[in-house]
């Protein structure tokens, strides 16, 4: 009897466990903020491209300088026009609303600006009354998808609406963790279900190209050389003839087998910065760039500028940049088919750079703006450091260094390198 009683106890236990087995499950949820796009017809967007009243600079992007004007990209929104006739007192004159804008270039009275997949051609002869003259559709095909949404020929995203939401998360794989929208298991398998992207810093540039073509930055993705506009996407080099500046002819696209970041024109060469190296293209025939050399380095973000004999590359660690390297590299490009590394200089977080004669300016992130004497490239000497918060872009223009930093756009007179003077600061709204 006692044994039967014990047996019944154990049997009841297993029955109970079996019932509970049906309740075994793992569930997960994520409370997050999602962004849904506001679409407008491409026609309406193009009709709205005009000079609006000046707006605060909030998220500064790439800079282009021409004559008395500074053109500053507001990332994803448009272009600020800043009257810089008096660098000691620049005036924010107007704002051009261009959704999806990230890159700009200026030639004479024409501003070229991307609008997601299209190139906008804008007459800026009267900055207070700019006029859209033309557009080139589909030039930037890699920007057809934005934050997981597809753009069409007829619709453009003009704004985003934020909404807090709760979503279920699949945890069926069990032995792993969710991190940044991806599921990591012990085998390092990753399932991406959300799209995140890092911010793109903007760029500076050199001072070599004369007007009427403007001066852009070392992180620019547009470059104007004489009668041609060259643009790079992540994997393509586009060639546009702008002999008639208001009617660009898109003649050629060259595939590039690297993750392209920047393009820098010098004489009849294009220096294209990628995450894995610097590509040098010869544009003696401007319609048909031909690759002449390549310098490969570890995977890093790398704006590049050049002069007759040397190229200067800054490598900085970052979210999408691979290796954790922060340094300035100097390349010998006398033989363009075989660029060679001369020397590397360690820095803390270098970004944009610009060179005027033997003076080299490097934006060094939180470490401010650093001036170097690059007379001897084998032994570049630090001249001066200007304390600024999170610098990322510098353009040398008429002995004025225009510096883009976290809290503002600064202008420094460096005509006397021993007495570099702050001329002005345009505050960036925090």
């Amino acid at each position: 009897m006692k044994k039967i009683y014990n047996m019944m106890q154990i049997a009841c236990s297993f029955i109970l466990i079996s019932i509970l087995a049906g309740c075994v499950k793992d569930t997960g949820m994520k409370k997050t903020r999602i962004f849904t796009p506001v679409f407008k017809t491409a026609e309406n967007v193009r009709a709205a491209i005009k000079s609006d009243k000046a707006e605060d600079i909030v998220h500064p992007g790439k800079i282009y300088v021409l004559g008395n004007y500074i053109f500053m990209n507001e990332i994803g929104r448009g272009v600020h026009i800043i009257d810089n006739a008096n660098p000691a007192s620049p005036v924010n004159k107007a704002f051009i609303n261009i959704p999806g804008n990230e890159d700009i270039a200026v030639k004479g009275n024409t501003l070229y600006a991307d609008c997601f997949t299209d190139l906008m051609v804008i007459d800026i002869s009267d900055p207070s009354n700019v006029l859209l003259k033309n557009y080139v559709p589909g030039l930037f095909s890699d920007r057809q998808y934005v934050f997981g949404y597809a753009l069409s020929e007829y619709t453009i995203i003009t704004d985003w609406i934020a909404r807090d939401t709760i979503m279920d998360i699949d945890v069926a794989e069990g032995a792993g963790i969710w991190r940044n929208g991806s599921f990591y298991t012990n085998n390092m398998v990753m399932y991406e279900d959300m799209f995140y992207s890092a911010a793109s810093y903007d760029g500076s540039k050199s001072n070599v190209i004369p007007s009427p073509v403007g001066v852009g930055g070392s992180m620019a993705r547009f470059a104007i050389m004489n009668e041609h506009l060259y643009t790079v996407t992540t994997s393509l080099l586009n060639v546009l003839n702008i002999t008639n500046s208001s009617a660009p002819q898109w003649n050629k696209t060259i595939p590039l087998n690297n993750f392209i970041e920047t393009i820098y024109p010098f004489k009849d060469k294009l220096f294209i910065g990628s995450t894995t190296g610097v590509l040098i293209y010869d544009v003696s025939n401007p319609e048909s760039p031909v690759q002449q050399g390549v310098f490969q380095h570890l995977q890093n973000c790398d704006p590049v500028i050049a002069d007759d004999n040397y190229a200067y590359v800054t490598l900085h660690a970052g979210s999408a940049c691979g290796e954790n390297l922060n340094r300035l590299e100097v390349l010998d490009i006398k033989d363009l088919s075989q660029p060679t590394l001369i020397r590397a200089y360690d820095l803390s977080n270098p970004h944009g750079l610009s060179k005027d004669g033997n003076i080299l300016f490097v934006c060094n992130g939180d470490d401010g703006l650093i001036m170097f004497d690059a007379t001897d490239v084998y032994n570049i000497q630090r001249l001066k450091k200007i304390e600024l918060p999170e610098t990322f872009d510098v353009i040398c223009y008429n002995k004025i260094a225009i510096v883009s930093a976290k809290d503002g756009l600064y202008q420094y007179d460096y005509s006397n390198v021993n007495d570099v003077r702050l001329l002005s600061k345009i505050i960036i709204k925090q």
Partner: protein
Amino acid sequence: MKAIIISLFAVLPVVLTAQSNKQKEKIHYTSSYRLGIIAGKAYTTFTAQIIQGIRYKNFQTGIGVSLDPYGFRTIPVFGHFSYALHPEKSSVYVYGDAGMSIPWNNGALPEKYDNSTHDEWHKLFPGFYGEAGIGYNMVFNKKRNAVTINSGYSYKRFKYDEHVYIWNGFETAQQKDRYIFDYRRLTFRLGFSL
């Protein structure tokens, strides 16, 4: 912190057992040590558990700590209660645990922001832990020392905030996402109680 909790529970039984030997009252100190498995929908993993408490007639209560690697490794710290049908001899008992499950990060979720990589960082929170089940005590001496087996239904919640930088179409912005996970599993344990 987790190591201190585990160490404390490992040393405590020696002290408490010594004290209980001196006493003849009906309240007895007791300690239990168990190893076992946690079987969930996704996979099965091991677990270990220590409970220190007192025993009075059919009832036993105490506090316990265990290692729970299922989903995300945690250290549950909980109150324990059980009722044995026949406390003086081998018999079935039922039990229930309730407490907090404290995350023990193995580095999978970085908890500091790295300025050089701009990676996301996390803040981990304790979540509710509970378990209920039945077991069997095989008493092998007059002191009621016993080999025990038990099985139960176990629940734990794990949650954390993830601080990320996202590109929202126009700008890069910091955002806090909260992840909440509920794990409902079966447990099977074998051990002994003193």
